[in-house]
């Protein structure tokens, strides 16, 4: 059901991990829907994304889009990163099954959320940047093990 490229990114995700004291962190999605993406950005004084990491709870497409999204933003300026659309992510992966297109949207949102965090922390206004929609933790549930 997935393209080779998706499978390749799923099997060997790029930039998986955390960044301590990141310039910006964004988490989107929620457990109810089965996907959560978190993106860490390390942005230098010139607004260039020096490093990026992700963590994702989700399906194969969610992992692959996260991985691809990090690849796409790495080395870009903040302004360039804002321009990255979900379509670009999906296309870079050779396409996604229709039921999985929302994963690429989530990846786009995760970038925005991390950039929003960076902008807020630094009192910046970045053109084209959207406020992330929701916070995952609101909807978390508990279960006994």
């Amino acid at each position, binding site marked *: 059901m997935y393209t080779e490229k998706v499978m390749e990114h799923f*099997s060997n995700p790029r930039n998986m991990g955390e960044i301590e004291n990141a310039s910006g962190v964004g988490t989107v999605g929620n457990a109810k829907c*089965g996907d959560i993406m978190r993106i860490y950005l390390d942005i230098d004084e010139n607004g260039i994304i020096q490093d990026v990491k992700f963590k*994702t*709870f989700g399906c194969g497409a969610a992992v692959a889009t996260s991985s691809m999204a990090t690849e796409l933003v790495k080395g870009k300026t903040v302004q360039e990163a804002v321009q990255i659309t979900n379509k670009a992510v999906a296309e870079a992966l050779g396409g996604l099954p229709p*039921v999985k297109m929302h994963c690429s949207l989530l990846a786009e949102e995760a970038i925005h959320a991390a950039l929003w965090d960076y902008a807020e922390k630094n009192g910046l206004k970045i053109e084209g940047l959207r406020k992330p929609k929701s916070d995952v933790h609101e909807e978390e549930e508990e279960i006994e093990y």
Partner: protein
Amino acid sequence: MEKKIYLDNAATTKTRSEVVEAMLPYFTEKFGNPSSIYEFASQNKKAVDESRSIIAKALGADSSEIYFTGGGTESDNWAIKATADAYSQKGNHIITSKIEHHAVLHTCEYLEKHGYEVTYLDVDENGIIKLDQLKKAIRPTTILITIMFANNEIGTIQPVKEIGKIAKEHNVLFHTDAVQAFGQVPVDVNDLGIDMLSASAHKLGGPKGIGLLYIRKGIKIRSFIHGGAQERQRRAGTENVPGIVGFGKAVEIALETMDARAQKEIELRDYLITRVLKEIPYTRVNGDRLRRLPNNANFSFQFIEGESLLIMLDMNHICASSGSACTSGSLDPSHVLLAIGLPHEIAHGSLRLTLSEENTKEEIDYTVDKIKEIVDKLRKMSPLYEDFIKRR
């Protein structure tokens, strides 16, 4: 290990080679239409009757009570819709459970759009319906109780005999979807008070595309598929002779081997469950630990998502499922896991392994090792796990 490890026998089983062998002559040699009058075709009628009688015996039923269909789904549709139709004078209320297969649930929803009322019973945390709730749900207008024999996801076996008793006491028909149970555990329609029962060949070593509906003598439900006079005028369409012969052979073998098979599967399954629970933290087993199909294991691994797990298992040649196969591709977590009270995020992280007698301890060991590795890898990738660790 290059060979595939098949742990999805609840989705479908391999057709046994003896079954294929039994079917083969009916394609190219004895290919006649059993309804035809000549000798050449009457041997096929005989083969169909023989299959019917093998299966009837396996259910403790009479041959005349077994009707062949195109599969378990058709059987469920038939039983429910035709009962609704035939008993609409008596009432318009049907009782079922929240953990039925979609073949039952979507059929009930269809009827709801056509003026019927449906009560969906809750289940407890192990997936067992509450008999009190069942009794209370019965109304004067109740025409059918349809509760599955064993659940396809979590393997829980319902208290079928008690349900049968309650149905009888209230003079309500009782249909059970035994697609997962028949051939795996003993089923006797009279002992259990079952009025109608659905089964499907491909879940017990038979071919796909053939099922049956048992209809107790005297129940006046009509045809669901109208046409020719086949199946005692209740199910029209040229008989799928090879399929019926294969179904019969598969049931014959399934019944003969049931005890030994169950014993072997239970042993392997319990070994699997024990290792997983011991070696992988933040893990639970879904479904009743005792009232459970011999070959079913269903786990939830906290902090990870099921599809990723499945794909990684697949990369290691392990075939498994995260719920019912029919809904894969859907984004909703399993309605069964939600019904037993799992939160969404946990329901998303579940894995169903359903064994066959062909699985070996070696395969199970390999599988557990891989699950452990993969769960670990996915948790390292999971923001939920990260938060959990940091919060500790």
